[in-house]
């Protein structure tokens, strides 16, 4: 087996272990939650013992904890996440209805981060002087903007002030959806974009100071080739790391942006389910979010080993 294959196999094994533990934590913590599930199901009314028996049997509440966990996990692996207590519908269906909205938002924000975060960082790193200074100042301000503050500023300026973008809701059709998602995506991307720009700038600068780049300059290698072959290829590792990590973190913070802009996505639904103690939904969405989070991290790891084959030989780059 080649080294790279072994590296992927190890990463996949770790992913499986992480998911198993995460699912156990998600199920176990809600199992321990105070409150009687039967009381929630009956809406507080007292039920005859027969009905309680029936409900306990249907929801496997009469089984021991580990059996319940196993039933839940094997159902979840088939895509069956149980039934929402408040909406009386399949959790998988409810999640599927909202996943597209969140995926679109996160994807939009991720594209903004990759284009403008990396782009600004390269600009600052390659062009010292006033361009670099303005990149530093812009990213310092934007890094400190939490999504909910960025949302207020964007709504006040571009929606209410200039009237360029809508402040609420999602659109119909692709173009309209992109139009409606523009302000939310900027709010979601703002602070991550600045972090990516900062790291990109720093790593480009660092590579320029390296001996092999100085040697390449003295050998008279033309500037574009120098940047492409000697600076960017080496700076690509930290840039990929920080981009991957920040994009993965967007998955959870999308909830804030969805609440601010009244979008009907997974995050907003998770919050309302937590509010109404709809545990099947909370478990289902948490599981999906952790799954996506872990997969994004895996993709970043695979990208590493493609960029720098040495990594699959040793430990993960930091």
């Amino acid at each position, binding site marked *: 087996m080649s080294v790279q294959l072994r590296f992927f196999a190890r990463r996949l094994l770790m992913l499986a272990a992480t998911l198993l533990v995460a699912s156990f*934590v998600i199920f176990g913590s809600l199992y321990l939650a105070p409150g009687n599930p039967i009381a929630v199901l009956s809406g507080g009314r007292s039920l005859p013992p027969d009905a309680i028996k029936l409900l306990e049997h249907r929801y496997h509440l009469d089984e021991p904890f580990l059996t319940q966990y196993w039933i839940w996990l094997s159902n979840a692996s088939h895509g069956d996440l149980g039934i929402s207590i408040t909406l009386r519908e399949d959790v998988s269906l409810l999640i599927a209805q909202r996943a597209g909205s969140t995926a679109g938002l996160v994807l939009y924000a991720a594209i903004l981060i990759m284009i403008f975060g990396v782009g600004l960082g390269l600009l600052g790193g390659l062009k010292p002087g006033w361009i670099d200074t303005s990149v530093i100042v812009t990213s310092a301000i934007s890094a400190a903007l939490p999504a*909910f503050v960025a949302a*207020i500023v964007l709504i006040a300026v571009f929606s*209410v002030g200039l009237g360029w973008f809508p402040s609420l809701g999602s659109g119909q059709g692709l173009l309209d959806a992109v139009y409606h998602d523009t302000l939310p995506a900027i709010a979601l991307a703002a602070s991550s974009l600045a972090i990516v720009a900062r790291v990109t700038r720093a790593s480009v600068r660092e590579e320029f100071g390296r001996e092999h780049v100085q040697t390449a300059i003295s050998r008279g290698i033309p500037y574009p080739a120098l940047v492409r072959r000697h600076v960017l290829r080496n700076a690509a590792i930290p840039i990929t790391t920080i981009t991957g990590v920040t994009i993965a973190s967007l998955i959870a913070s999308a*909830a804030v942006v969805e609440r601010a802009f009244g979008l009907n996505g997974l995050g907003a639904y998770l*919050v309302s389910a937590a509010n109404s103690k709809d545990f099947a939904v909370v478990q289902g969405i948490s599981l999906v979010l952790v799954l996506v*989070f872990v997969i994004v991290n895996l993709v970043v790891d695979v990208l590493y080993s493609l960029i720098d084959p040495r990594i699959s030989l040793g430990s993960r780059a930091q």
Partner: protein
Amino acid sequence: MSTATIAVPTRRASAVWSALRETGPIGLASAAVIVVALLVTIFGPLIAPADPYLGQLSNSYVGPGPGAPLGYDGAGRDVLSRVLAGARTSMLGPFFVVILCLAAGTLLAVWTSWVRGTVDAVVSSVLDILFAFPGILLAILATAIFGKGLTAATFALAIAYTPYVARTLRGAALRERSLLYISALEVQGASAWAICFRHVIPNIVPLILAQATTLFGYAMVDLAAISFLSLGVQPPFPDWGVMISENLSGAVQGFPLAALSAGLCIVVVVISFSLLGQRLHENYEARR
């Protein structure tokens, strides 16, 4: 000849002050902002010009005027008074998060770096798995289980941040453990307990301090987000996250000042903590 004495590098509480002095003008300015924020945390409700709970609906979203430099919120309450009174939960929440995750992270880091072997491997992989939970997600889960409020969110964030603290400090503790003076103390018969608490931990205090400062900013943003999602501090209690949530509809209607005032407080405090944390970290790295 007297018994052999070994120069043991220890830094005590005065380390905090000398570390602060070395952060330069930006670090000191950030520290000054933080001190002001702490003073407002203590005295905020006392210096608030008006009652932060009592509003007049006729004042709803009325702009700045005499007696109300920041205007009124949607319920006609004085925004300045609510911002001043809201410092308490907004600052104390992150404070407890930082205390909890630093205590847990430091103990884990020193313990695993001391015993190494299987324990270290097991704890490290458990912490790796904890990384799969974004802090906000864990906090939302916690509020679903234990009910809405600051307490559940605080504990959940502390758990979510512990892996970061433990990983950073473990490296420093491992480096410290490999130093000669530790072996010398072991040879002299000092107990592991005494070496860890009297020597290893005091010597990584600068790094712990840098971590605390940086994490405070993160915790403040995450807790405000939880309150913004109406799962943390509950209205009408004044809190900066709650204020943004309460006045979101005002911003949509063209009255953003009430929400922005609270938002600006968060941004200023977070910038100060992150700048100071960066400086402290750079100084620690430079001294290594």
